[in-house]
């Protein structure tokens, strides 16, 4: 068995290409790691037999020219996988087996990868700590009883614990970047429209975007290249030429203008995060970037706007779960309406119900103008803040989250305190922009902290390049000990 601990996806691909390891041995190593990590509760479903089968097929007839040659990958359980149960972390989809494959996962498989299993997440991606999943809490490998972030918590935990060489998540308000920050890994939310939404269980369609979660920037570029691309089945997919993000990676930070928005210095933010932000600025300045103070005046209104727009879209999207065509159906109720009501009451968890009710209320007759329309107007102002500043700067640097990973149960009694976790990540979704969370340091407890780089629409290459240079000069080392096996 080969030791795969702390290996980046890129290193693993090199080992496959130079035949240092076969796809079968590689797959077996991951399976062994996964089997000894049950405590972390990262997987909802595993597909080991099929993975070994796929690995053998690759070894018999290898194609080393692919982006992901013979690479086993676990993915968030929000991506529909043909013939493999897809739950979205919900009881209502407990037995759902899609008869089709999401475009994003299909792209990964067409580039040589295959499925290792489906990763736990907050129910319908609604949560910031993976505590809303029907399949239980996920544990952060950084420390026992710590949350891995959310909603892509199974993804971040599995990645940091060496249970998959790279993974993918979805990000509606921070669900890739916040868990990446909590586990000391890299997470990218691409520009809205760059990765197809087809076949992803929908949460809030104007905000949802799939993206890579990886150990390094180079890995992130490889994964983005493999998963992105135009898809006619997604009406908001952007039709543009595919880019070679990994090949085009370079150290071009010199002369770039980096904006520092003053509104991201919030009350009660730990001093360590402030210091980390300063450290980030210094690294980029020393590399020849120009640091410019900017203002994004509507930042504080992003979270309230999000908690109108996202639940409104969710209440419409989740209307489809009625117990008729697929998913869970309650056996209680004397007529059709009662069957609907009981199915949805028993099938959805508390957080999902809460958001459906918020969404239904803000869209209901008499309240639409006061809430939904108001939010759409403020969303315009938030987008304008970014548009105006991107005339002056190339990218924006902020902290990824206002804290490091917290304890399980610490924030479950107060929904608003949980929502505040996404204060730095949500504005980007509202404006449809790409943003990268980079591991940048550890706090005094030894928990990872991340910095966020926000780019112009479709400027993924630039933020990846800045991140690539930053990574080399930051010297971040994750201190995860394998306490769980």
């Amino acid at each position: 068995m080969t030791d795969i601990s702390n290996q980046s996806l890129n290193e693993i691909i090199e080992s496959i290409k130079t035949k240092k390891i076969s796809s079968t041995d590689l797959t077996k190593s991951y399976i062994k790691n996964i089997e000894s990590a049950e405590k972390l509760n990262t997987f909802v479903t595993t597909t080991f037999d099929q993975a070994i089968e796929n690995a053998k097929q690759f070894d018999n007839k290898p194609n080393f020219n692919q982006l992901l040659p013979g690479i086993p990958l676990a993915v968030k359980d929000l991506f529909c996988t043909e013939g493999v149960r897809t739950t979205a972390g919900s009881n209502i989809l407990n037995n759902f087996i899609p008869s089709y494959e999401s475009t994003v996962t299909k792209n990964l498989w067409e580039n040589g990868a295959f499925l290792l299993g489906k990763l736990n997440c907050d129910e319908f991606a609604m949560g910031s700590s993976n505590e809303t999943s029907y399949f239980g809490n996920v544990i952060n490998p950084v420390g026992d009883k710590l949350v891995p972030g959310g909603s892509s918590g199974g993804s971040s935990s599995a990645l940091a614990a060496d249970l998959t060489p790279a993974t993918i998540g979805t990000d509606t308000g921070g669900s890739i970047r916040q868990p990446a920050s909590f586990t000391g890994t890299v997470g990218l939310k691409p520009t809205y429209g760059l990765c197809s939404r087809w076949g992803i269980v929908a949460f809030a369609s104007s905000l949802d975007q799939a993206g890579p979660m990886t150990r390094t920037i180079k890995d992130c570029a490889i994964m983005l290249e493999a998963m992105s691309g135009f898809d006619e089945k997604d009406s908001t997919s952007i039709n543009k030429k595919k880019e070679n993000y990994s090949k085009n990676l370079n150290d071009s930070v010199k002369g770039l203008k980096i904006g520092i928005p003053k509104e991201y210095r919030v009350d009660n933010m730990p001093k360590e995060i402030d210091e980390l932000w300063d450290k980030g600025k210094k690294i980029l300045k020393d590399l020849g970037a120009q640091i410019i103070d900017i203002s994004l005046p509507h930042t504080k209104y992003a979270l309230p706007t999000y908690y109108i727009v996202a639940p409104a879209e969710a209440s419409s999207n989740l209307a489809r779960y009625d117990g008729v065509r697929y998913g869970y159906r309650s056996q209680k109720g004397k007529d059709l309406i009662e069957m609907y009501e009981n199915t949805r009451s028993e099938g959805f968890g508390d957080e999902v119900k809460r958001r459906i009710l918020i969404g239904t209320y803000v869209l209901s007759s008499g309240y639409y103008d006061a809430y939904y329309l108001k939010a759409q107007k403020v969303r315009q102002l938030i987008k304008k803040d970014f548009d105006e500043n991107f005339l002056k700067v190339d990218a924006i640097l902020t902290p990824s989250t206002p804290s490091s990973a917290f304890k399980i149960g610490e924030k479950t009694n107060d929904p608003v305190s949980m929502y505040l976790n996404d204060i730095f990540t949500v504005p980007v979704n509202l404006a449809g922009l790409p943003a990268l969370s980079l591991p940048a340091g550890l706090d005094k407890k030894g928990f990872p902290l991340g910095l966020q780089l926000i780019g112009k629409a479709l400027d993924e290459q630039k933020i990846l390049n800045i991140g690539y240079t930053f990574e080399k000069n930051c010297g971040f080392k994750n201190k995860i000990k394998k306490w769980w096996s």
Partner: protein
Amino acid sequence: MSLDKEKIKHVAKLARISVDEAKVKSLTKDLNSIFKFIEQLNELKTDKVEPLTSILNQSLRSRKDEIKDGKIREKILENSPKENEEFFVVPKVVE
């Protein structure tokens, strides 16, 4: 504004989610604290702002209206909680 128990029951009815009396109390508390947070938006004057309807700098594409797939009845029925070979089955609707 504040949401009372009756309003929450009404919204739950609209959303087709049954909530029992015990849950209504905690929901009232949670939703009121969320709406208090949301209502910060009222500080902003937005009379002259156009609402944002799309973040893409492109309009929705049109496509030819043509049949590309079909004949997948079995696949569609595969996941139904109760089936009768060719149809979805629901509780009796008409007397």
